[in-house]
């Protein structure tokens, strides 16, 4: 089981749900997101671009680690991990 936390504007595309629980055992962040897109189609284009890359000013965390400092979308997952999608700090 993987939990995905959704915040702010993005909840417009989850029926206002702030937490999505994915059944099954996705092996990587990419696999988890792929399942998420199927459940909530509107999230995909807002979080990743046409090439499937995370948008520049969006951050994805696994537990407390930003996946940009890990293995990006190939970051491995284990049962019980929490993914959080957040807009990045922009400006000063």
């Amino acid at each position: 089981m993987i939990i995905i936390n959704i915040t702010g504007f993005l909840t417009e595309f989850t029926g206002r749900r702030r937490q999505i629980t994915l059944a099954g055992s996705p092996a990587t962040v990419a696999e988890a997101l792929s399942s998420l897109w199927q459940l909530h189609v509107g999230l995909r284009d807002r979080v990743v671009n046409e090439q499937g890359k995370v948008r520049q000013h969006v951050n994805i965390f696994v537990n407390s680690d930003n996946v940009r400092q890990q293995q990006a979308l190939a970051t491995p997952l284990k049962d019980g991990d929490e993914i959080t999608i957040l807009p990045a700090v922009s400006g000063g």
Partner: protein
Amino acid sequence: MPAPKNITPKSGDVVLLVGTMKGAFIIRADGARTTWEVGGPYFPGKAIYAFAYDDRNGRTRLWAAVNSSFWGSYLSSSDDFGATWSEPEAYHIRFPEDADASVKQIWQITLGHEDEPDTLYCGVEPAALFKSTDAGATWALDKGLYDHPHRPQWQPGGGGLCLHTILPDPANSKRMHIAISTGGVYRTDDGGANWQARNIGVRAQFLPEGQQYPEFGQCVHKIVSHPSSSDRMFLQNHWGLYRSDDAGDSWSDIANGVPSDFGFAMEIDNKDPNMVFIVPLESDEFRCTPEARLRVYRTRNAGDSWEPLTNGLPQENAFETVLRDGLTGDKGDPMGLYFGTRSGKLFGSNNTGESWQTIEEGLPPIACVKTATIA
């Protein structure tokens, strides 16, 4: 977020579609164009660089290009003048998955030829053209332009590598011009399958001496043409004002009596193909109105001479900037002319620039101003 105020345009109204760095505004007046009612903001916090009104085939549809620095760039439409907007789950404007690009920003929305009332075009960054033939329901990349051998050599200008201007030729449904910063002007004569650079005579001042007239690579800021005389075109360059009398095959310098030939915005009169309006800026280093005077310049003889239009515009301490889509005309007689500045001021004239009024101040920085006349 602020709750938007909605307006209800009536038949005969003129509507200004104002895109800003922080949202969209819809502003209406009756045909006299003297008293204005402001609606909005829509999409608060999002940058709106492109706006259009499609009243073909019985539609009353607004299109806005919504650009979020977080969530990407997409098209939204409204059939009720902004009361409700579409929020598509999947973005319509997208490069194919096998392309080496992703949409950074939508820069332009343009209606297609009159005899193709369901056709729309979008110009995007990185420079590419998209076309819809079903009134915006689906879109496809113009592969002819995307696969052009020049494309790898196009370079981003200060605003990015954007395809910002699209001019379908009203007399020839197969012909269209587009302009790219920095790539130059390109023309298709076969409906977008093939494109030819059309920049002969246009200077690229940022290149070394002796190389300043390349086949392509000019930083063209805006081009305009006239429905009654589409072979006659005008071009505001990154340094340089030009006219073409042969549909862009060649260009000649017409910077006769302007305080600077640097600028972005350009508009042509809705009746007279010899009447063109610009807002000169001092230089590329200091992109403000020369001498801190806000002046629209008008030519009535296709660029042989230019005259400043200042009545009602600030002539002291006016360090203003008007962007490439910040100046536009309406369909009225005489033509109404409108422009917005990066300091959030919106000015209008109901007499082709003879006199001006301040329509609104305190808006966010204005990126584009378009007009609609309500049937």
